[in-house]
């Protein structure tokens, strides 16, 4: 991977991140917001992976793999929480979730 190709990787990552932000800011449903967050994380992982090309120890790629693993955990927990909230309040929109606890 040459130096000239680097901006395109970063453009792609920025596009992915921006798409995630857009989804997070515009969608009402909590599931969509969670998906947006995933997109943003993937954008960030791409940036980590791209910049680790210049590191002989590949610490960025390792960090990216760790982030993916953490993301898996996070998504599974967040989904569980959202499912439980939906069961309790019959609400999936973020605007309606104004109360903490019962």
């Amino acid at each position: 991977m040459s130096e000239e190709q680097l901006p395109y990787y970063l453009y792609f990552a920025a596009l992915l991140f921006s798409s995630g932000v857009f989804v997070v800011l515009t969608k009402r449903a909590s599931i969509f917001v969670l998906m947006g967050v995933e997109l943003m994380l993937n954008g960030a992982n791409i940036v980590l992976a791209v910049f680790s090309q210049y590191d002989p120890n590949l610490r960025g790629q390792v960090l990216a793999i760790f982030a993916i693993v953490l993301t898996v955990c996070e998504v599974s927990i967040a989904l569980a929480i959202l499912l439980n909230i939906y069961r309790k309040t019959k609400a999936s929109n973020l605007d309606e979730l104004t109360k903490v606890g019962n």
Partner: protein
Amino acid sequence: MEMLMIIVVLFAPLVGGLAAYLLRHKGILLSVAGVAISFVVSLYLCISGGTIERSFHWLPNYPLNMLADRVALVLITLVALVSMLVHIFSLEYMKGDDGKNRYFLKLGFFTFSMIGLLLADHLILLFIFWELVGLASYLLIGFWYRKKGVPSAARMAFMVNRIADVALLAGILLLSNNILNISEFKSVWLFLPSILIAIGAFGKSAQLPFSGWLTKAMVGPTPVSALIHAATMVAAGVYLLFRVSPFIHPSALMVVALVGTFTALYGGVCALMQHDLKKILAYSTVSQLGYMVMGIGVGAQTASLFHLFTHAFFKAGLFLGAGAIIHFMHQATKEDTQDMRKMGGLRKQLPWTYLTFIMCAMALAGIPLFSGFMSKEGIIIAGWIWASNIGTWAYLVPDIALITVFLTALYVGRMVMLVFWGENRVKDLISKFSETFTLKIPLIVLSVGSLWFFYNWNPIAHVTWFDSFLGNEAIPSSDIVSLMVTFLSLLMTATGLVLGFSFFKPNSAYSQSYVHMADNRFPILLNGFHLTSLYQLFGIGIERLSVLTFQMDRKVVDGAVHLAGIGGVVISKVFALVDRFIIDGPINLIGYISGVTGKLLASFSARDIQTQFAWLLVGIILILSWILFF
């Protein structure tokens, strides 16, 4: 003991008057008794001599002195005597009047006030009694208050006196030190307080220009005229002048002499052509008071006081005689008349009145063997000596006094002729009228008191026991002056009487046509030189001035106040605008700005989590931009 006697003398007439008022018919005799007690006690005090002086404290350390020295005691005795005689006379005179209880109360009140005035040594105390005497005079002038013209006459007499009293009070206040007891004065006063006090005395003693009230006062009951407006109250001014004459400024004393002289002439001239019997006597009183005031002015204090004393007798006698005549006319014609055109030939119906009237009239005219001659001589001689010390122009004073002697004889002759001589000018008179005892006694006492021998056995002497009794030296006079004045005065009197007799004797042309004499002959003399109109003009002038000042007040002062009010409103409106836009404006602006800012800031964190997140993102981008580009 003496103090007790003084209190009895002072209060007995008042108590008697109150008894007369409260007890109705029985009380009237008690009022006579009250005055009689007062007279007897004062006579005793007078004979026993001695000076009684008492001070009582009005305010702390502000004593009011009462002084009963010989002068005061002699005059108190005189007042009590005349008052007693007037009381006795009134028993008959007021017999049929409904208000006689009120009448006797007022008489008693007057006697009380007058004695108080004579006792007072402190000027403020004197002023209090001075006012009380004026009030009593007002009440008695207006006694027949239902008659037309009486209330206005009473009011005029009262108001003219008040004007003079203001001057008196101002004079007293101008003396302005703690000692206002006359007997404690040492030095001569300044001109202004002297003249003001003299003006106060002029008012009470009916001197020019205040003379008009005395003739107006003649609408009161005739015995009242005898007591108040002839014998006692009008002499109060002379008494005051007598007491303060050692302290009066010499220039003011000269004014006093001139005013007295011209008043004497004025009274004499005005008395000449009156038709009203009481008005003749009133003008005559003015004239005689002028003599007394002139006497004070020329330094013949004792002679003045002596004239006051003798005048009280013969003038009270004349007034009571006039009262008897009016009483008779009232019963004879069933109407109140004092007009001499309806009299004439009364000597047949009223022999006692005629006799006593003639005696008193002779005393007034100044014929030897009567008291008036002696006292008048003393004053004129003193005037002559005073003039010789002052200068040529000052001979005006004794000359006018001598002319007035002539006038006095003339009008006395006219009065006696027209009232008593000739035939009745009203035909249908009742013939039966008895002069009762109560009418006769006072007349006889007063006319006998007008004879010479009470004062000096020598009928043409002008020096009497009065001088030595009062402890004053008679004015040393050269025999030539006194002889000349006596001669001139006798000449004047004789001329006046002869002229009076020849003009007004029953068969003369004047007497024949007198019944039909119109009112408009000699209008100036008849109206006393329109002095009362002058007062009215003065009153109208004052009224105009008050109207003018009222208008001034309303237009100018009120206008200014309104203008100030409107100005205040305008200014406050302007301030309100300034307040609202200039002061409130920035504050409101600041508030508005903070409100907008607050809303803006609040909108960042408001609504929902996505907006918050968006702003968070904006913030992060800004921070990152800051780090990257600066």
